[in-house]
């Protein structure tokens, strides 16, 4: 692609810890996204995320290296507890954060009224998959970028881009989910901890693995069996929507909701840019630093090659999700709906 009018897409990379943030920045990320060590972000896991001090030094580091930092404040404060989210916003703004990613209307409104110049991004957790939904948030709160739910096709994105006033960011790599984000209380149903309010999904604190004498492994979340693996299969993490269940007419277990697969849009790179996507998001705040380094530098090269008119080295990018079945999800067409 040698179109000088095409925007160079921003590479937005996950930072689960300060070391991961530095790794991503060093590997060529244009922006990194991260959260505080509490319920204000949707990856609220033990040992992950940033203290305020770490956030401050990380923002400095990123800026010194020409990268932006986006704060994930994308969960929903329950009534009576909005103070924590406001504090997160205040702290991040004080450190010079480049954008705040929100889902809750109350939080969006707080940012807009307290910090009218602060760039606001709409999280996938806001669940805005249509033109009108996006325009609603743009008009009400001055949202400058929307992260698309992973359920739109390329033709749909092209159409959408023409009708909305904000930038588009879409996921290109990482764990894939088909449940509508921001609208799931499966975890709360089983564990009493909420995805929307506490920022956890199938939390490790409720995970149990049991192996029988024949090395068959059963995975559980709380009181419910999520899956069972024979001795030759690799077990998966017991995420509820990725488990196997029985239905009245399906008496052998089947993936009732989805199979554990990984998103990889390497093949669709030029088309996505042509469709007007402003930024590419890589998922994976729980991944190892080594993974982050490899994935970010591979995608950095791919985007740079493409913008310079060279061929993108697909084979390597595709091999990054080795071990998981890959998918291009809905992006190509909607056959699976």
């Amino acid at each position, binding site marked *: 692609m040698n179109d000088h009018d095409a925007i160079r897409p921003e590479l937005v990379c996950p930072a*689960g*810890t*300060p*070391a*991961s943030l*530095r790794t991503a920045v060093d590997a060529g990320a244009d922006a990194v996204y991260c959260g505080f060590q509490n319920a204000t972000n949707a990856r609220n*896991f*033990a*040992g*992950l995320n940033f203290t305020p001090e770490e956030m401050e030094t990380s923002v400095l580091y990123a800026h010194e290296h020409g990268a932006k930092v986006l704060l994930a404040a994308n969960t929903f404060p329950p009534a009576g507890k909005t103070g924590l989210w406001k504090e997160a916003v205040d702290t991040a703004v004080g450190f010079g954060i480049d954008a705040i990613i929100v889902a809750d209307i109350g939080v969006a409104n707080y940012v807009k009224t307290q910090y009218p110049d602060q760039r606001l991004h709409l999280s996938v957790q806001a669940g805005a998959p249509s033109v009108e939904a996006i325009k609603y948030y743009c008009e009400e709160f001055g949202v400058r970028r929307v992260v698309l739910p992973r359920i739109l096709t390329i033709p749909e994105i092209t159409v959408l881009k023409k009708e909305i006033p904000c930038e588009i960011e879409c996921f290109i790599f990482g*764990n894939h989910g088909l449940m509508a984000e921001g609208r799931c209380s499966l975890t709360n149903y089983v564990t009493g901890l909420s995805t929307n309010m506490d920022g956890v999904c199938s*939390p*490790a*604190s409720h*995970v*149990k*693995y049991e*192996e029988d004498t024949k090395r068959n*492994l059963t*995975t559980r979340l709380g009181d419910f069996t999520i899956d069972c693996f024979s001795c030759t299969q*690799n*077990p*998966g*993490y*017991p995420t509820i929507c990725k488990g196997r269940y029985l239905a009245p007419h399906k008496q052998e277990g089947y993936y009732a909701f989805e199979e554990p697969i990984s998103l990889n849009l390497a093949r669709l790179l030029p088309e996505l840019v042509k469709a007007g996507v402003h930024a590419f998001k890589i998922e994976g705040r*729980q*991944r*190892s*630093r*080594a*993974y982050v380094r490899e994935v970010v530098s591979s995608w950095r090269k791919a985007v740079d090659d493409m913008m310079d008119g060279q061929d993108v080295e697909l084979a390597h990018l595709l091999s990054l999700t080795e*071990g998981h079945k890959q998918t291009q999800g809905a992006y190509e067409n909607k056959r699976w709906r």
Partner: protein
Amino acid sequence: MAIAFEEAESHISNGKTPLSAFLRPALAPFPLFILQPVLRRIVRHIAHTRPELFNRIGPHKDKLFLIDPVNLPFVLVLQAHPDTPLLRAYRRRKAPRTDAQIAGTFLTLLDMVDGHLDGDALFFTRELHIEGDTEAVVCLRNALDDLEGSVAEDTASLFGPPGRQALKVLRKIRNHE
């Protein structure tokens, strides 16, 4: 020890022998009391040079972790407390009660301390067996990941050039160069 590793590397990369074949004989008659001061030195060094690791463990700092390198003739008990860090070897049957247990081959465990193991992969791989307080294990992994360099490197450096060489060899075996 370093020479033994080099030999091991050439045999292993030729697909001739598993790592345990070299480690077991080298360590089998090992009286554990020789290991203890070494382990103490390692954990104190890490606590001193890597306070962020111990801070990140946070809510799980009082937990006891059993680390079981299944192809070695001992197990390790770890407590990642910033003030009273603990790392001790025990014979497998004599280990105390612990809050979480991580069992795996020496090389898989190395991956975990060397920053090469995903949070998700902890559970995907059959090579690691986790029991007890799963959240504490995830927290430990996340804390280990938040390090420039790695605990493996720090530990290896404690033993000078032979230590660093040994780690280099192990990483090669693991294809992490």
